[in-house]
C-alpha cells in the first residue's frame, strides 16, 4: 500500500530541528497499524508526511505505487481527496455546519452532486450510529459523538488509507474503546488500511502492528497479528 525509505525531515523554526532521521516503513493493504512514541518523537510529523499534509526533505515515499515527491498543492489536494481520510485528536469539525454537512464535505470537493452527497453522508452517519443527530451542530454533540462524525467524514470518500492522529486522545476510556471498535470494524468490513498514532498502549495493542518511534527513528516493530 505504502512504502517509505530513508525519510528525513528537518524543521527550521529559527533553530534547525531534525525530527525524522531516516524512516523506513512499509504498510500492506488492509493493515491496521499503530505508531507509538513519546511526544516529540516525530510520530505526528510522520503521519502528516504520509497524509501529504507535509513534505519531506530526503528519501522516497510511494503511495499505491506512485512516488509522492515535490507535489504541488493542487496535486496533493487531489491525492488527499482520492486516497486519504483523516481523523484528528481535536475532531476538527467545522462548527457552523451540521453533522451531515461535515460528513458530506469531502464529497463536495470531489464534485459529487448534493443529493447523492447527502444520501451517502446519512448512510455513513447511520454506520457510526448517529443518524438521529444528522442536523445537529458539532457543539451540540459529545466528544465521542463528534469523533464518530469525524470518522464518518474520513470514510465517506472510501479512501484506501485512513490516518488517525490520536483519535482517542480527547476521549474517556469507555468512549475510546467504542471509537477503536468502530475503526476496527471498518478496517475489517471495508478493508481500508488504517494508521493510527497513539500513546495509549491499550489502544495500540488492538492493532495488527505497533511501530515504536524513538527520537526520529523506528526503534522496533511489534507484530501482534502473527505473534
Amino acid at each position, binding site marked *: 500500500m505504502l512504502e517509505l525509505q530513508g525519510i528525513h525531515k528537518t524543521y527550521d523554526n529559527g533553530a534547525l530541528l531534525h525530527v525524522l532521521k531516516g524512516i523506513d516503513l512499509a504498510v500492506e493493504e488492509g493493515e491496521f497499524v499503530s505508531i507509538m512514541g513519546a511526544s516529540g518523537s516525530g510520530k505526528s510529523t510522520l503521519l502528516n508526511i504520509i497524509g501529504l499534509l507535509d513534505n519531506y526533505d530526503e528519501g522516497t515515499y510511494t503511495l499505491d505505487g506512485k512516488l509522492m515527491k515535490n507535489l504541488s498543492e493542487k496535486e496533493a489536494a*487531489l491525492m488527499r481527496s482520492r486516497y486519504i481520510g483523516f481523523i484528528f485528536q481535536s475532531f476538527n469539525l467545522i462548527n457552523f455546519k451540521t453533522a451531515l454537512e461535515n460528513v458530506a464535505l469531502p464529497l463536495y*470537493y470531489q464534485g459529487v452532486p448534493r443529493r447523492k452527497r447527502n444520501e451517502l453522508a446519512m448512510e455513513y452517519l447511520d454506520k457510526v450510529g448517529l443518524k438521529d443527530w444528522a442536523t445537529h451542530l458539532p457543539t451540540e454533540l459529545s466528544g465521542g459523538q463528534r469523533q464518530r462524525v469525524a470518522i464518518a467524514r474520513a470514510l465517506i470518500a472510501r479512501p484506501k488509507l485512513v490516518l488517525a492522529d490520536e483519535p482517542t486522545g480527547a476521549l474517556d476510556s469507555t468512549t475510546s474503546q467504542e471509537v477503536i471498535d468502530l475503526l476496527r470494524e471498518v478496517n475489517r468490513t471495508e478493508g481500508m488500511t488504517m494508521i493510527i498514532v497513539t500513546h495509549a498502549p491499550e489502544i495500540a495493542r488492538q492493532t495488527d502492528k505497533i511501530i515504536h518511534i524513538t527520537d526520529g527513528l523506528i526503534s522496533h516493530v511489534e507484530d501482534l497479528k502473527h505473534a
Partner: protein
Amino acid sequence: MFDIDFWQELWHTITANKKRSVLTAFGVTWGMVMLIVMAGCGFGLKKSLNEQFESVDANAGILFSNFTTEAYDGYKAGRWWQLTDDDLELLRSQYPEIKRITGEISQGGGLGNNVVRNGQGGAYSLRGIEPVFQSILSTKMLSGRYINNIDIDQSRKVCVIGRKIVNALYMPGEDPIGTTIQVNGIGFTVVGTCTDASESVNIGSEDDETVILPISTMRLMFGSNNTTLDMIVFATDGKAPIAPLTERIRQTLYSAHHISPTDKGAMWVMSMQDILNKTNALFGGLTILIWLVGIGTLLAGAVGVSNIMLVTVRERRQEIGIRRALGASPRVIIRQILCESFVLTSLAGIVGIVLGVWLLRLVANIITASSDSGFVLNPQISFGLTMVALAILIVLGIAAGLLPAQKAISVKAVEALQEE
C-alpha cells in the same frame, strides 16, 4: 452551475459577524452614495446648462471699449475711447461674414429710483437698442411686442420691461401693456414684457431687470445727438472660425481709433463660442474631479473590505486547514475568498446606488420646490453612469479579495490543524 452549499457558506461567513460586516460594508456604501450624488449633481448641472445654451446663438459675439494700455500714434497709454456708429458701418461694410450687427447704449440702475409708476419705483438698468438686437442676444418676450423699426425712426417713447419690473410695479394680474411708466422722469408707454432667454448667459444687465428703449429715443433723452455706443453685438454666418475673425475685427477698430495693434487691453471682445468652450472645459474638469473623489472614496471602502477579509482569513485558519486536508484545492479556497469579498462589496455598493439615487430624487424635489430663479439644477444619474459605477464596484470587489485569498492559500494545512 448553482451551488447551494457554496452560497450558503458564503452567506454564513458574511453573517457570522454581522456588526463587523455591516460596518465594513458601510464604507463601500458611503463611497457609492458619494459617487452617485456627486456625479448626479454634476450631470444635472451640465444638462441644465446645456439647455440654457441652446437658446444662445453660438455664432454671436460682443465687443466693448476699454482704456488703452499702450502709448501709440502720439497718444498716451490709459486713454478712454468709445465705439461709435461709424465703427458699426465700418464692420458692416468690411465683413461679409457678419450677418447681423448692431450697437447698444446702456445706463446702469444705481442712481435712485429711475423707473416709477404711480409713486412706486425702483432702480433698473436702461438699454437702448435696435430691433435686430433681439435676434442676436435673444430676449424672450412674455407679452406684447419688442421694439420695432418705426419706434426707432420716430424716436417713440415706448419701452419693453423685464419680468421683475412688472412684479415690482404692477399688481398681480394687472396687464402692463399700454400703461405708462416714468423713466428718468419721462413718460413711456409699455409695449411688451420680457425675460431672460438664458438664466446663465447674460451680457450686460439681466433682461428681467432692464427697461428696453429704442436707441434713438434713449439718445434724445440724454440730450445729445452723439453717436457713441457702449457695446457692439454681432452674429456671423457660422462658417468662418470665430477666433481669427474677432482678432481681425480688433485690428480694424484699433487702426480706426489710433490704438496700438499689440494692445490687448483696449478692447474686450468675446464670442459665445468662447463662453461655451470655457464652460464646457470647466465642466469637463468638474466631472473628472467628481469621479476622482467618488472613486477615491469607493477605493477607501474597498481597502476596508480587504482589511476585514484579511482578519477573517486569519480567524478561519483552522477551518481552511480542515478543508485542505479534506481535499479542497487552492483554487477552491481562492474562489471562496474572492466571492466573499465580491458579494460583500457588491451588496454594499448596490445599497449605496439605491440610497444615492433616492437621495438625488430628494434633492431634486427640494430644489424644484424651492426654485425661484427658474434655473433648475436637475440632479439625476443616467442608467449608463450607474452601470459604470457598478462595473467599478465589481472590479474593486474582486481586487479587494486578492490579498486575503493569497493569504488563505498560504495557510499550511498541517500548521493550521495543530493550532487549537
